[in-house]
């Protein structure tokens, strides 16, 4: 909820709410009964009327984004909870270089081993931070892992037959953006901008704090994922792709337009290469920008990061990432493509 409550919870052990927990049968279970009642009633009464094609297309894309992200989110939350509950904090101080300046590129490169998409990386990064990993290093991991893992790189090679440099450029540009963004945060970031989710380790058995962490992260991140999914679905239905073609020939503008399209569409990083390949009218550099920006900045990530790390963090980190990603894509496109 608010930052105040979380810091309180972290400082005061036991937290104040232990004594006066809401008894069973309080208000919200009844709201819940109403929700289920609406579901049953609505299925009989409203469902025949909810058939407008635009609404159905929206709902299909919305459900598709949520359903498709769910396994990745569950996996990310599971991994994050396991990091919190089973991996001792001392492990990270040994695994990563002591100096944060060096820890950032190491963490960024480590992103290559987590096979997931961007939904998984946010909870994992927050789990890393709460176990004492330097925020800048965790952020570098957050940006790198959805873009440079083996599954994504293979998908890129498959989607661009005969253009292996596209996958190379994607790997290099994404890693560079992740590391530079980490360094910038290390140098200029202020600790009060970032809200590190409190992860009190319970006194009980480890599996219990594991289940607790998982449940908390899932409910929290899942809610924000739904916000992002709904926004992306709306954009997908409302913004016609036809107007894209008209700017395809203009050098820098076309790069910016595809970068913005990547933000709006919020396609899973494992599938975005296929969409980029279908945008034939655009230059390779513009497609590269689409591939570099997509896994780092998109509507569902904005919602997830805002929910996990706070609004003040998101308002600074997301524009920083976007500008860096576009600039590096332009440069990499010049040199490599």
């Amino acid at each position, binding site marked *: 909820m608010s930052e105040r409550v*979380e810091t309180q*919870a972290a400082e005061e052990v*036991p*937290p104040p709410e*232990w004594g006066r927990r*809401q008894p*069973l049968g309080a208000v*919200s*279970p009844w709201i*819940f009964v109403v*929700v289920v009642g609406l*579901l049953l009633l*609505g299925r009989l009464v409203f*469902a025949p009327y*909810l058939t407008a094609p635009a609404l*159905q*297309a929206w709902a*299909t*894309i*919305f*459900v*598709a*984004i949520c*359903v*498709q992200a*769910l*396994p990745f989110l*569950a996996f990310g939350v599971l991994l994050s909870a396991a990091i919190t509950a089973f991996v001792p904090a001392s492990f990270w101080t040994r695994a990563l270089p002591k100096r944060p300046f060096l820890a950032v590129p190491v963490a960024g490169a480590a992103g290559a081993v987590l096979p997931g998409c961007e939904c998984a990386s946010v909870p994992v990064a927050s789990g890393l931070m709460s176990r004492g990993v330097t925020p800048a290093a965790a952020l570098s991991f957050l940006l790198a892992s959805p873009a440079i893992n083996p599954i994504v790189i293979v998908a890129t090679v*498959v*989607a661009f*037959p*005969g253009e292996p440099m596209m996958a190379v450029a994607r790997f290099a540009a994404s890693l560079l953006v992740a590391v530079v963004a980490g360094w910038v945060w290390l140098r200029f970031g202020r600790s009060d901008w970032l809200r590190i989710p409190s992860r009190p380790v319970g*006194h*009980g058995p480890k599996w*219990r704090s594991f*289940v*607790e962490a998982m*449940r*908390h992260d*899932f*409910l*929290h991140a*899942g*809610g*924000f994922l*739904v*916000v992002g*999914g709904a926004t992306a679905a709306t954009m997908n239905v409302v913004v016609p*792709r*036809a107007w894209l073609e008209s700017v395809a020939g203009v050098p820098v503008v076309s790069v910016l337009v595809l970068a913005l399209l990547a933000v709006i569409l919020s396609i*899973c990083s494992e*599938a*975005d*290469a*296929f*969409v980029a*390949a*279908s945008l*034939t009218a655009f230059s390779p550099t513009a497609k590269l920008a689409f591939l570099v920006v997509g896994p780092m900045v998109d509507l569902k990530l904005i919602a997830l990061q805002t*929910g996990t790390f706070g609004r003040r963090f998101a308002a600074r980190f997301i524009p920083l990432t976007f500008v860096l990603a576009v600039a590096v894509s332009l440069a990499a496109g010049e040199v490599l493509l």
Partner: protein
Amino acid sequence: MNRLTQSMILVLLGGAVLRITTVSTTYLNYVKPGFRPFLIAAGVVVLALGVIGLVQEWRGASHDHDDHDDHDHPHTPGVAWLLTLPVFAIFLIAPPALGAFSAKSEEPQARPVAAAETYDALAAGQVNEMTIAEFTGRAWGEGAGSLAGQQVRLTGFAVPSAKKKDRWYLARIQIACCAADGVALKVAVLDAEMPPENTWVEVVGTWKRPPSGRLEPGTIAPELTAVSLTPIPQPVEPYE
């Protein structure tokens, strides 16, 4: 939001995911078939989290504040309520596979994924069944000659052209991962009356070679001269 509500939301969400993956094939309207095992696993995990929470709550309630409840749990914000939205969408709107509405809104023709791959020669003297992606890939690629004079059978739904009145397309959405990345592939059907919009049909016909040198391949949809047209129910897997 208290723990009981949280647990129930988790049960509801996990149940909805298991419902669309195990007892029906609805999930194919949203994602690739390969997602099924992962979706089932995720559904089971979410359902289990909810059930564990319910059991803990029930035991905690019967023991009434003894030390079974001594784990701390940070407050969960109301945003978790939003997790019921996809559940509502699944049950109330029951979103169908993307169809004519989405295929119409993308008038510039998209290039199918992997159009550059090389195709085998078609068997002569029989009807060759192929996807619209393969048909388009052949028609636009190097091996366009392989289609000449061959009968092919394509499956898709009917979409009227947004520009020309008497023209219609056989369309199919191609997805790489989920419906959000869907790309509409279209083949113009000649010499056949258009069935009602969004009807699924099987069309048998031959490729019509475009007048040479006028347009670069890839700018307009390939054309198919129809021999026969059969309405069919929507395939279980609606996307290519």
